[in-house]
């Protein structure tokens, strides 16, 4: 990974990155730039390589080909998709946040207030519901005063009203701090309307641009099915089967995708 400064202001720039697990190519010639103050949403079917691309951005993985440039001194707040604390480890929410920001009791309380879960401060982490854990994780990410926030499937296990609040909060954080945000989603609810840039990923970048431009792009429609792509953008019907129908492919597990979908 290069340490030299990327273009002024750019937080992270991925240039032609390729990554394979054995013979199975997960990412192929993927480029992506993340700018301050901009919300970028990564969409694509399950197994399309979204989380892997996020790991490149986070510096948790290195590409086999291409390169990833990060702005020197970049502070990243990361909200993983799942975080399970082992039952054997007694840990209160406050202690959990302390791991990211030691010694600042007030900051920890404020961060929880911000994400609407101040009442959970003294609770044990392992007793939290999925939605509560998401908010605690977001509080921990915000505590770092990040230049870049990376959120992997933040809307998972959160109801529609909760999602709306979550995206509203992310918008506020972006406006106030000017941080860049990378969102990963295989879910199109609300996301499209609240984002500045959409990158449609299926091992390679199929299309990218503003939500309006992407929603008109034929590649987008091919990827998300013949029905015209976004049945849920305008209507707020929450349909759990939707996730699995999105790709039009058979449902694959995360690394097991056989990549049968080629359209270029």
């Amino acid at each position, binding site marked *: 990974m290069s340490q030299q400064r990327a273009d002024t202001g750019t937080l992270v720039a991925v240039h032609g990155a390729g990554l394979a697990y054995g013979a199975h190519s997960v990412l192929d010639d993927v480029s992506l730039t993340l700018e301050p103050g901009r919300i970028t949403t990564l969409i694509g079917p399950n197994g399309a390589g979204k989380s892997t691309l996020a790991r490149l951005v*986070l*510096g*948790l993985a290195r590409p086999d080909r291409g390169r990833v440039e990060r702005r020197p001194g970049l502070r*990243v707040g*990361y909200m*993983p998709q799942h*975080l399970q*604390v*082992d039952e*054997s*480890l*007694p*840990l*209160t929410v406050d*202690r*959990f946040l*302390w*791991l*990211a920001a*030691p010694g600042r009791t007030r900051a920890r309380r404020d961060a929880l207030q911000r994400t609407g879960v101040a009442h959970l401060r003294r609770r*044990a982490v392992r*007793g939290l519901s999925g939605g509560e854990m998401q908010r605690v994780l977001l509080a*921990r990410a915000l505590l*770092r005063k990040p230049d870049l926030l*990376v959120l992997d499937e933040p809307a998972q296990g959160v109801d529609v009203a909760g999602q709306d609040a979550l995206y509203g909060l992310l918008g506020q954080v972006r406006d106030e701090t000017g941080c860049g945000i990378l969102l990963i989603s295989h879910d199109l609810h609300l996301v499209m309307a609240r984002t500045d840039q959409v990158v449609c990923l299926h091992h390679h970048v199929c299309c990218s641009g503003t939500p309006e431009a992407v929603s008109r792009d034929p590649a987008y429609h091919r990827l998300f099915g013949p029905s015209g792509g976004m049945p849920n953008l305008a209507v707020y019907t929450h349909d759990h089967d939707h996730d699995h129908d999105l790709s039009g492919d058979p449902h694959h597990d995360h690394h097991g995708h056989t990549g049968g979908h080629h359209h270029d």
Partner: protein
Amino acid sequence: MIELLAPALLAGLAVALVAGPMGSFVVWRRMAFFGDTLAHGALLGAALALALDVNLYVAVVVACLAIAGALAGLQQQRQITGDTLLGIVAHTTLALGVIAISLQKSVQVDLFAYLFGDLLAVNWGDVLALWAGAVLILVLLAWHWRALLSITVNEDLAQVEGVPVTRTRLILMLLLALLIAGAIRTVGVLLITSLLVIPAAGARRLSRTPEQMAALASLLGLASVSLGLAMSWYADTPVGPSIVVAAAVLFGFTLLRRPDA
């Protein structure tokens, strides 16, 4: 009586004190079998120390680190799962250690003492070495506490937040190797894991924070050593196993309390 028991008690307390927080990490990171494997490998280190006439503690630490390194390398392959691998390495090194010790011609070595510990045989020099080691381990633990806890909760998150994950993991290995080296003469290689795991497991039910659990595990360990020694003195039972039985009984009592967090 006190002149005879004092070194044994002080040596045992030094090990139990450190075994509290270290055992908590072993429990949190599900490393019990790993710790056991290192302990078994320690016997090989002890045999080498006898054969080459080098310091026992140094040889055991080196042997533990070598085994930890070898395990990390072997885990790269996928055909044999982690616990099977640990089983193979643990028992192979134990067997090699027993053979190597039994081959020593120069000195009469009490194999039983290495396997189950011989706390009553420690002298004041050992006590000093054990307490120096204990203080060193506690200082290093306190210094790296947040990093160690961070990688235990989630390694990805820790790395993104700037914790040097690999280095912190190595520090934990080193501390575990140091503890095992200290414990080999006191509770023996076969019982070290129990002194790590049982007090920590008992402390879990009584704690709401990691620090509470580590401190309570130390207290339970200290009590186990004291009770085990007393049992050994009055009932003439072997010391190491008596300590383990005392720890198990104390653990049993903690089961009576409902966990609150």
